[in-house]
């Protein structure tokens, strides 16, 4: 039985906000099944006594003094925007007209 089904891949693609064609779903499901089969061994390697490490360095919060200072200008910040209007990001409409 495959570790991951085509339906699951379709569900994950939805969660990840990636549109996928039926062909793409078929191909991806097959490949992910092979990959998951190969990586599944991690479940048997370490017991409950081994703590998880999420990062190579012990992390601490780093803060800076809360002082105002110049940032990007509005023009610079908007320079990469796909669309803009009145010095703002213009994004696709999500509500119906009325």
């Amino acid at each position: 039985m495959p570790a991951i089904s085509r339906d699951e891949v379709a569900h994950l693609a939805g969660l990840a906000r990636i549109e996928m064609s039926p062909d793409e779903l078929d191909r991806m499901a097959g490949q992910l099944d092979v990959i998951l089969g190969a990586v599944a061994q991690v479940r048997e390697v370490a017991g409950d006594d081994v703590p998880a490490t999420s990062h190579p360095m012990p992390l601490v919060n780093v803060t800076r003094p809360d002082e105002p200072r110049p940032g990007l200008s509005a023009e610079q910040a908007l320079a990469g925007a796909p669309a803009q209007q009145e010095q703002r990001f213009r994004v696709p409409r999500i509500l119906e007209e009325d």
Partner: protein
Amino acid sequence: MSDLTRRTAAELSGLLASGEVSAVEVARAHLDRIAAVDGDVHAFLHTATESALADAAAVDAARAAGEQLPTLAGVPIAVKDVMTTQGQPTTAGSKMLEGWVPPYDATVVKNLRQARLVLLGKTNMDEFAMGSSTEHSAYGPTRNPWDLNRIPGGSGGGSAAALAAFEAPLATGTDTGGSIRQPASVTGTVGVKPTYGAVSRYGLIAMASSLDQAGPCARTVLDAALLHEVMAGHDPLDSTSLKDGYPDVVAAAREGARNGIAGLKIGVIRELHGGDGGYQAGVLARFDESLELLTKAGAEIVEVSCPSFTSALAAYYLIMPSEASSNLAKFDAMRYGLRVGPQGVEAPSAEQVMAATRAAGFGDEVKRRIILGTYALSSGYYDAYYGSAQKVRTLIQRDFAAAFAQADVLVSPTSPTTAFQLGAKLDDPLSMYLQDVATIPANLAGVPGMSLPSGLADEDGLPAGIQLLAPAQADDRLYRVGAALESLLNDGWGGSILDKAPKTLEATK
């Protein structure tokens, strides 16, 4: 070809300082070389001809005015396209960012500019640094200068190929699972992944934040050290940037080349030396010869065992996609980059635009990893996959600690094989992933690693690499041992390994 393009960065630095050549001459020689060969190699996605010549002219003017300049002032460099460059396109090899010009420089790029290096342009890479062959670039593959039908490694294949094709004496790279070291190995160049946190990640387009590390790519160990010194340093803009522990790597490289390595203990990692890892015979033969040279130079070779390394690849391919799926969520079609409307929908929702844009903007490998990461992080699977992988990470760190208690430096072949044919592994992602089997443990534990050429494999005459690993914040050991080994190998070869490269590129002109 101009002789200037065959020079190392250290040599160019000397020629520039003494006034024998101008920075403009050096820049022009490299730009001419790029114009002549990059149609075949495709190491560059963008060449910054005008700004490079202007920057070079500014260095010449400063020198003429008697200004004290940094060591590498006027030396050209190629920058991996994953690093933001103010005023120059930055795409990370993806259609998603096609045409995007960042409003700011990555800290690494800022450091290069402050050190007055001349930025030649941006190098090709696997999309969002995902791949081991640079075939996953949305702009077409880079080719290996040793054989144009073969891959230059990945994801930093563009940077490595630019060095091997003499288009640039220095380049930058990023290494999440081996993307600096593996391309170095298959192109006969030198690549270093510094200790995690030694080089700022600010302005690097992130793949997996707990693994990504920028580092130097060069043709010699000393050149890598000179560039490492410029790139590294504390950066308040990166919360994971190290505050201290920056050893003098340039002094270490010089000391290694001069005094050798007598008395050092070098540990051979049993799990990364042959066995069932798919290692090519010629790669192992060159590795064993390097060990013999190190022994003759006075180092003591010991065998160490790191049993958890056999699970490193599996842990990596759960942790990396998990972090990548989160990092790439920012490509949402709203603030920058590509925006695609779904077909046949009059008033699409933001979600529909996002899904259509991500479908059109991401390539197969990126989609695969985002889905894999989304799966590993999803409810019900999180503990079994992601949580277990993080435990393996603990075991790998323990293995490193035990191994470094027995040896000063660890060694293995860098990549199990020499450069494979373009297209050979494109339909087999798992086989592509195996290329990084020896390099991944260093990323999971945050320790530094270097790859340098160990010779040419008997089967195909292509470069093989040897990997050196050191404890965190002991990057200088890599340079000391690397420079010593490089000097011994060059004595045997009668020069640099790149002198043995077939004249593929000259023949095509």
